[in-house]
């Protein structure tokens, strides 16, 4: 299934072959084949519990596949995280009294993996400053993270994830609980990294609307099965009805899409529809 927009000759950054994943004795999904090319942005959609986050964890090597293989830039994932991959986790607000300034969150991305006496290397500080500027966090970088808003924390997390200019960026619901302006800002950061560094991006989300116009392909997971294609190919009533095995409608409201009737995911889509209007 070659995408129309991303050229077929582009370098493959992430390659997943015949992957299956089990949780206990329940199979979350099986038979996943996916190539993500340099400069491509893929959104992963699906109801909660369909294994979207688990997919990202499997790509990071933190969750073993029950079958199949994942390679990043030609090398198999090693089974314990990687600095070749940038990871922006779900926005979990840090506790108010966390003893950490904004800049420290970014610094952890630069030197948090290093063992040995904690002596800064030449260039570390400049790198941290550059990352802070890149994510537009200069203004609040020196304040305690507990006092920052969700959007500000998420920008700093993006800065941390970009520390090693990763060729592959994984984002797990990076927009949850952010207001519209911050959603746009975080998407802008991710989009700029992919264009400037020709990086591949896999982004898990439950609301595709903020990403329409940026996303190249959509991987829709439901019922342990997949549909992969451009937004026009996937976000259609007949395609999703076949995938869910239940009547699902994709409605257009202006330039927004609303999925109605999807089991499990219904509530969250309604919720975001409301947010979009407000």
């Amino acid at each position: 299934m070659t995408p129309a927009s991303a050229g077929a000759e582009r370098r493959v950054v992430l390659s997943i072959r015949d992957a299956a994943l089990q949780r206990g004795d329940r199979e979350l999904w099986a038979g996943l084949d996916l190539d993500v090319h340099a400069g491509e942005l893929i959104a992963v959609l699906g109801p909660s519990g369909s294994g979207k986050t688990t997919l990202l964890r499997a790509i990071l090597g933190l969750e073993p596949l029950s079958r199949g293989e994942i390679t990043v830039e030609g090398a198999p994932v090693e089974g314990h995280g990687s600095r070749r991959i940038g990871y922006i986790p779900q926005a979990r607000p840090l506790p108010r009294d966390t003893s950490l300034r904004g800049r420290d969150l970014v610094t952890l991305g630069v030197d948090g993996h290093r063992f040995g006496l904690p002596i800064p290397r030449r260039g570390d500080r400049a790198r941290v400053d550059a990352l802070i500027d890149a994510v537009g966090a200069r203004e609040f970088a020196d304040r305690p993270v507990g006092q920052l808003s969700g959007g500000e924390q998420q920008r700093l997390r993006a800065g941390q994830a970009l520390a090693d200019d990763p060729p592959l960026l994984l984002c797990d619901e990076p927009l949850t609980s952010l207001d519209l302006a911050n959603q746009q800002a975080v998407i802008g950061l991710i989009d700029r990294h992919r264009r400037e560094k020709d990086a591949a991006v896999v982004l898990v989300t439950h609301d595709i609307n903020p990403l329409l116009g940026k996303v190249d392909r959509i991987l829709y997971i439901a019922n342990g099965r997949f549909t992969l294609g451009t937004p026009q190919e996937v976000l259609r009533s007949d395609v999703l009805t076949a995938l869910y095995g239940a009547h699902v409608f994709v409605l257009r409201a202006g330039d927004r899409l609303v999925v109605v009737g999807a089991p499990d995911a219904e509530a969250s889509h309604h919720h975001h529809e409301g947010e979009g209007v407000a």
Partner: protein
Amino acid sequence: MNWGDIADAMFGGLPYYGEILALVSNSVWAGAVLGLVGGLVGVFVMQRDMAFAVHGISELSFAGAAAALLIGWDVVTGSIVGSLIAAAIIGVLGAKARDRNSIIGVLMPFGLGLGILFLSLYDGRSANRFSLLTGQIVSVQTGQLGWLIGIGAVVLLGVLLIWRPLRFDSLDPQSAAARGVPTTAVSLAFMLLLGLIVAVAVHIIGALLVMALLVTPAAAAMRIASGPLSVPLLSALFGFVSAVGGILLAIMGTLPVSPYITTISFAIYVVCRVIGARRDRVTRAAA
């Protein structure tokens, strides 16, 4: 007891202060090392939300020391063995916070009970009995003091060597794992270092009061600072002032060292809390 007796207990030794100080100078050194290293380790104890684990380890350390006393072993070795066993159990079985708390809740009374049993069976000098629970650094022998100082230095070096991955794992475990930090190994290493420093603390301020040097200084520092250098440095300073100050005050009289240490460390915490609250109010008013 009247005021005169109390004053005598507190300040009776003042005329001979110089001589007493010379006698206990090794204890002061041990207190200084414990204060500094305990303060540094305490920062991670707070960040990893492990204050309860410190208490659990110290009770098993006490049981180990009591067992050693009973069978005629070296008491410091006994406390270290007890500490390390507890730290390993908590580290391996208690990766998740909720599991950890229930395991500690189960281990702690068991360890304390064992320790009390061993002490009741022990018919040696009775002063040793309570010193394990409430501490009496000035009664620890010089050879053992050397060991305590050495162990403190090992813990300091160990913590410095894993400082950055440990910090990453303590503050943001998910991202640390994603970026390839061996989080399980780092957590276990920290538990063992924590076990060692707790064993040292048991001999200096006693199993029941270990938290005054392993939790309170870091909690105080976090009230007034948030930088990656300022918090550990302040915490180490607070631990040092509490431990050394407590010993220096205690040897003026005949009272035990521990209440001085716990009171100083508590006072520092209260002051930091007040400063922090005042600053919060100002920030909120400005916002």
